[in-house]
């Protein structure tokens, strides 16, 4: 199997020759930016640089996937949000204290949404990568879900208060914003994406499982039906309580956080939705050494997690040796198993 075949098979919960190493979110680092002359913020805004930096996950780190959409703000920029683009060593963010919408009536996905430089950058980068790598490696796109877009466009607090005070209006907002998710996702598929990450930040710290069921489950079912590639849902934080709902959506995979144990998560998701993850970012990949990384990889493999990788976008200062340890540990584990058997 080549890398692309391996990732796609695992996303479909089919047999693989070894567990794929997958990054549904960013593995860009400042050192990799130097290596290929593609620093932030340019690498978030110029297709060639975006593609070049993204490719390092495959060419330098040995992952089985390439994911060029490092940030979570590309479509929010195209929707009109104000963006703090930051510097090489920090992430661009939406200025959520300056929301662009207050009510559902304000929501408008511009006709030229996909022609905006910050969305077009993504589709062009995917085209470049597809042209360069053909079918040898999985190319993963990313389209933000409406809950995340709600935070960006309404502001976190106003959007959460709206969801408490007016569920009907909230559902209307989500329904209108979902068109941005669908259109950007379809454009990336058309450009050559093999799969899509769909972050929708119904995170454990702010949103309950009941909220997920009330507001997002049906929308996520709709995404899985309308976006005809494997969809990897990404939600940060403790999410075990909503995994039973997520498993019913038809999403191919759930990219899960290290706040959830691999064993408990697999017990819920096995045979219903693939799991991707969940190497801890701040404490392990960023702050510890390869031995700790290896231990977390092995724990995921022992639990039967379908695809192994970091839990979320890695810190930009992460050491390269820690990232390279993930595929090394996966290969060693499979080699050891083959010897034993």
């Amino acid at each position: 199997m080549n890398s692309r075949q391996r990732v796609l098979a695992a996303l479909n919960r089919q047999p693989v020759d070894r567990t794929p190493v997958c990054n549904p979110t960013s593995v860009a680092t400042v050192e990799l930016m130097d290596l290929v002359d593609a620093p932030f913020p340019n690498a978030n805004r110029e297709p060639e640089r975006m593609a070049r930096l993204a490719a390092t996950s495959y060419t330098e780190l040995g992952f089985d996937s390439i994911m060029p959409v490092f940030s979570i703000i590309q479509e929010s920029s195209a929707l009109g949000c104000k963006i703090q683009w930051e510097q090489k060593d920090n992430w661009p963010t939406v200025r959520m204290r300056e929301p662009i919408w207050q009510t559902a009536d304000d929501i408008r996905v511009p006709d030229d949404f996909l022609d905006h430089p910050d969305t077009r950058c993504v589709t062009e980068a995917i085209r470049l990568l597809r042209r360069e790598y053909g079918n040898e490696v999985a190319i993963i796109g990313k389209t933000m879900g409406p809950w995340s877009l709600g935070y960006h466009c309404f502001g976190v607090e106003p959007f959460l208060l709206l969801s408490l005070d007016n569920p009907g209006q909230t559902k209307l907002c989500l329904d209108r914003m979902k068109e941005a998710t669908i259109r950007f996702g379809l454009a990336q598929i058309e450009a050559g994406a093999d799969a899509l990450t769909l972050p929708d930040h119904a995170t454990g710290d702010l949103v309950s499982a009941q909220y997920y069921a009330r507001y997002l489950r049906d929308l996520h079912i709709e995404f899985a039906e309308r976006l005809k590639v494997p969809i990897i849902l990404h939600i940060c934080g403790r999410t075990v309580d909503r995994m039973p709902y997520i498993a019913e959506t038809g999403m191919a995979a759930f990219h899960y956080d290290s706040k959830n144990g691999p064993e408990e998560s697999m017990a819920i998701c096995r045979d219903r939705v693939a799991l991707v993850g969940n190497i801890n970012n701040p404490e392990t990949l960023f702050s510890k050494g390869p031995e700790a990384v290896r231990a977390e990889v092995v724990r995921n493999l022992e639990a039967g997690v379908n695809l192994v990788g970091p839990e979320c976008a890695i810190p930009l200062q992460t050491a390269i040796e820690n990232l390279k340890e993930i595929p090394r540990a996966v290969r060693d584990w499979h080699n050891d198993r083959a010897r034993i058997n």
Partner: protein
Amino acid sequence: MVHTMAHTLDLGRRVELVSMDPHAGDISLGLYREDSPEGPGYLIHTYSANPEAARRVEFLTRAAEVLGGARGAPGQRFRFPCQTGHQTAARRLFLEAAKLPTGDELQPRPLTVHDRKSGQDLTVEPLGAGRYRVTTSTADEARCAVLANGLRKLAEMDATEGQPVVAFPCGQDHHELVGLLLPRALNVRAALREEESALSRGQLSAPSSQK
């Protein structure tokens, strides 16, 4: 053209990073540690092909030798003459050197520092075998203790109960290193805050956690 060959190197364990060096076109510089029978050696490395990069690395390696009393080692590395790692001090040495512009004159720092808070000079007196006593002409024991405690934290030195005396566990003198760390040791909290601030950059938080 997107495709690149594998260029990353096995340089040892990265123990410190300057993610954007304002003195060399915002390149990233890593301090890598590799253990060998001759003792731990450190390498300053950048993956940047920026024209200033090679000169910058050369300057910082030289700065580590002059300001930290390190010695050149094979593979453009440096190590301490005692053949001990002194990793915390080595990281601080790297960070302090990286604050200097390339080409700055390099001189070992004196073992005396002016304490703006008390308006007096504090001096570190070598006692031999890696031990140092903090003294002052005004017998301000509290400030001496502060400085000794700062050195203990910044260089992982051993403290002596009830005395402003600190010692390197290797039992050897490191005058240059002590001189370099003195100004920072007076306000170790600021140094640690600076480190924490650097650590918090580059971590992506969920939209719900952003401001």
